[in-house]
């Protein structure tokens, strides 16, 4: 009897628990979470497992739960437990853990570390950046140089605090510079406030544009086994308008690719991730065991370009791939832990998928408003419609009532031969999720529609033309400029 502990409480972890529950080895699934995710709770009960409620980012809490349940191994869903050394602690106790140890998870925790190793080991798809240990230096830099840039907390801060400013019209530069300076302060004072585990505070990166996509992969530190590409949609509202969220929904397929990414670009993305896994080992001396995901963008600069790395599956991206994985989740996990991933045949159903997140009004920037509303879900109708549902930020109270936690409530997944067909299936299920106190829910009805898909295709064609041109001129990885008075300046990077 295999016993596995899943750490985390969001839709991604529900999808992970569900993947384990489908394994032929019929494992008992246990969970460590803070709120009672109704979906995870049910899987624990149905498989004969159990769950522990508490701070799942705390290594001692997770270790204690793993020991109490005497699990065979642990699978960590979110990044924060990894940053705090949950994997290290479990390893010390001899409990295998799918999820990198703290030193390797640094690739996600510190965006400055990630950029540095990409430069040091010459990994393609890197961007020029500067990191700052205090606001004053960042502001001084912004006032003197920064034009079109991305400003980020130097540490992964729950995906929050990133601001990308295209500063292309000189007549609007003054206002934009002001926003950049103020935002640098906000990063330091707000988004980085609770974090003292890295030295850098603010990262300023050159801004690039193009369609984004996520490539998730399992790795045992040697072999990298990639999953199908997924594209998340970050703007809160339709037509890509509104503030940034953790992701309002995502699409994948048909098959391994997306309609706007070529096989060549997919392969290049896999190469980049593989090189980073190797670079992490060279830099830290540790083997990366778990999931690594490249948050990629197709840019004019490189073609496939790294925006960020995740030391785990994406959310919602996990829900596009895990339900359609043909390989056995227990087998894959054990192969990661044993270092035998090369023997695993990682295949997925040949489908297109659409995931849509449903959120309470107030998400993402006013979560206090989005929190505490009673939810009902007609799971039966969703199942009949051929869709899957994964619970997210929902707490199952003792009395059986489900209450929103302030973030995305559920993610609904549909699969079909094409993305628009999958979209229609998911859209038909949105009505089965309701709040009973009259507070509103919202989702993006445009994710996966032909209109939005065509926009991405057009955008990718535009970018592809430019990077192919740059390839043909031998300009990939360098810039060639004429600076009046200084002359011809060639920069290789």
């Amino acid at each position, binding site marked *: 009897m295999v016993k596995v502990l899943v750490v985390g409480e969001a839709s991604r972890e529900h999808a992970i628990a569900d993947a384990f529950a489908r394994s032929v080895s019929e494992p008992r699934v246990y969970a460590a979470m803070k709120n009672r995710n109704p979906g995870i709770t049910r899987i624990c009960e149905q498989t004969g497992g159990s769950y522990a409620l508490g701070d799942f980012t705390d290594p001692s809490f997770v270790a204690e739960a793993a020991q109490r349940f005497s699990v065979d191994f642990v699978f960590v869903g979110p990044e924060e437990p990894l940053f705090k050394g949950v994997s290290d602690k479990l390893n010390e106790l001899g409990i295998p853990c799918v999820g990198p140890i703290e030193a390797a998870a640094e690739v996600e925790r510190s965006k400055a570390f990630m950029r540095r190793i990409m430069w040091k080991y010459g990994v393609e798809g890197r961007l020029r950046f500067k990191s700052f240990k205090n606001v004053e230096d960042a502001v001084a830099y912004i006032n003197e140089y920064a034009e079109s840039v991305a400003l980020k907390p130097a540490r992964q801060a729950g995906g929050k605090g990133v*601001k*990308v*400013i*295209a500063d*292309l*019209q000189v*007549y*609007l530069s*003054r*206002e934009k510079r*002001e*926003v950049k300076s*103020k*935002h640098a302060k*906000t990063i330091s004072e707000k988004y980085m406030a609770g974090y003292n585990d890295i030295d850098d505070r603010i990262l300023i990166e050159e801004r690039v544009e193009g369609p984004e996509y996520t490539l998730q992969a399992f790795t045992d530190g040697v072999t990298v086994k990639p999953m199908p590409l997924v594209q998340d949609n*970050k*703007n*809160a*509202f*339709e*037509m*890509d*308008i*509104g*503030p*940034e969220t953790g992701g309002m929904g995502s699409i994948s397929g048909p098959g391994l690719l997306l309609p706007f990414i070529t096989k060549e670009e997919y392969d290049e993305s896999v190469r980049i991730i593989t090189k980073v896994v190797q670079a992490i080992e060279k830099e830290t001396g540790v083997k990366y065991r778990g999931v690594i995901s490249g948050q990629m963008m197709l840019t004019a600069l490189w073609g496939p370009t790294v925006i960020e790395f995740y030391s785990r599956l994406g959310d919602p991206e996990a829900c596009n791939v895990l339900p359609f994985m043909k390989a056995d989740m227990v087998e894959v996990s054990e192969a990661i832990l044993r270092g035998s991933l090369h023997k695993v045949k990682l295949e997925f159903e040949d489908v297109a998928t659409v995931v849509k997140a449903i959120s309470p*009004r*107030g998400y993402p*920037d*006013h979560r206090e*408003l989005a929190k505490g509303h009673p939810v009902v879900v007609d799971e039966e109708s969703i199942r009949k419609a051929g869709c899957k549902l994964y619970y997210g930020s929902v707490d199952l109270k003792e009395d059986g009532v489900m209450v929103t936690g302030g973030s995305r409530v559920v993610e609904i997944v549909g699969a079909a031969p094409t993305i628009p067909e999958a979209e229609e299936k998911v859209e038909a299920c949105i009505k089965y999720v309701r709040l009973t106190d009259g507070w*509103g829910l*919202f989702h993006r009805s445009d994710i996966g529609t032909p209109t939005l898909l065509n926009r991405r295709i057009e955008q990718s064609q535009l970018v592809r033309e430019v990077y192919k041109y740059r390839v043909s001129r031998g300009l990939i990885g360098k810039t060639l400029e004429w600076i009046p008075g200084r002359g011809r300046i060639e920069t290789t990077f």
Partner: protein
Amino acid sequence: MGGVIGLYAFDELWRMSRFTYYGLLALQHRGQESAGISTYGKNLISTRKAAGTVDKAFSEADISSLEGWASIGYVSAEPLNGPEPVQPVTVNSPIRLTLCYDGRVLNLAGELKGRREDEASLVATMLSRELSRCNPLEAVEEVMERLIGVYSLIALTERGEMIAFRDPLGVKPMVIGSFGFDYGVIASESCAIDVVGAEFKADVKPGEAYVFTPYSIDRRQILPARPRYCSYEYVYLARPDSIVNERSIYDVRRRIGRMLAEECPVDADVVIGVPETAIPFAMAYSNATGIPIEMGFMRTGPHVRSAIKPTQFERLVGVQLKLNAIRSAISGKRVILIDDSVVRGNTTKNVVSTMRNRLGVKEVHVRIGSPRIIEQCPFGVEVPPKDELIAAHLTDEEVASVVGADSFHWLSIDALIKALGCSKDQLCLGCFTGEYPEIVKEALSHG
């Protein structure tokens, strides 16, 4: 008529007044007599309105002093001290708000009689009252149910909402765009979205409303769309770099140029377009016929939209300064002269007589990219009274003689509809046909 823009930041770090200013510059062609900007931030609405073009109306000090992360702006073809106040107009209670719209409401004449209030303030009061009673989308529905008219309207409230809606006929254009994760834009035309550095997304559809709040953007089709798009937008009003009602203005104007070549062919040595609106017509005319196009005129001073200037004197100054002929392009040739529209005939007469009397042309054939303008616009476009309209009174032969041309041709209505690529019942062709959308009669019967 006028142009509207609204900018709404998703983060209070932003100051939107300068964005609004540049957005209004991009909409300047929709009204050059006066302009206004309102901003919202820290629970305060601030407004500044002044006479003249946008660059004259606002100083650097004005822009710097208008604080706030949300903002709306207006350019108007009506003067500052005219019968209607320049927008945005502000009402203080029950909910303080400021609003502006391009268009005209037709059924408020009764309520306005004997009162000192104006149309826009009345609409603002109506919206304010409804907002105090129900949620913003319901409030918009109440207001849209009561108004008969055309309006592309944007309002900003003391609660930090930006509300935009377009009447069910969608006579006036309205589009939406956004900039990354940072701000949304609503404007009369997509060129304003480009100029503020944002990305054009879509039309605000006829009958549709958007409500931006600090924690949501809601979109709803309030009333069913019954499109009657203004055809004059395509011929003259909108900028060629704009996309309006899912059509590129430039493409439509090129199609019109081709139609002119097909409808009334004539042999000539050169095609000359009257700057600036008629240039795409002339280019397409030349491409279709193989007759070379030349640059016929140079402008002196700033760009002025002469046709919508309020006085005859200003219109003539506008035309004369804008049209200094380039002698060698024209002299001694058989010329096809293409213009966008002829209202009173003064401009055309001025141009043709200069060509004939001072430059010496062999022939002048005038081709107009719009049908005959024979009626006024009930929706606020500055068309003079019928007794001033040359096409309403003279035959084409008479017009040719009056302006001094060898031949004179207006685009046919059928050709215009074809160039627009939609059915006749989706357009307002009132100024060309005298047949207006039903709402004009409806409003009359409501008094």
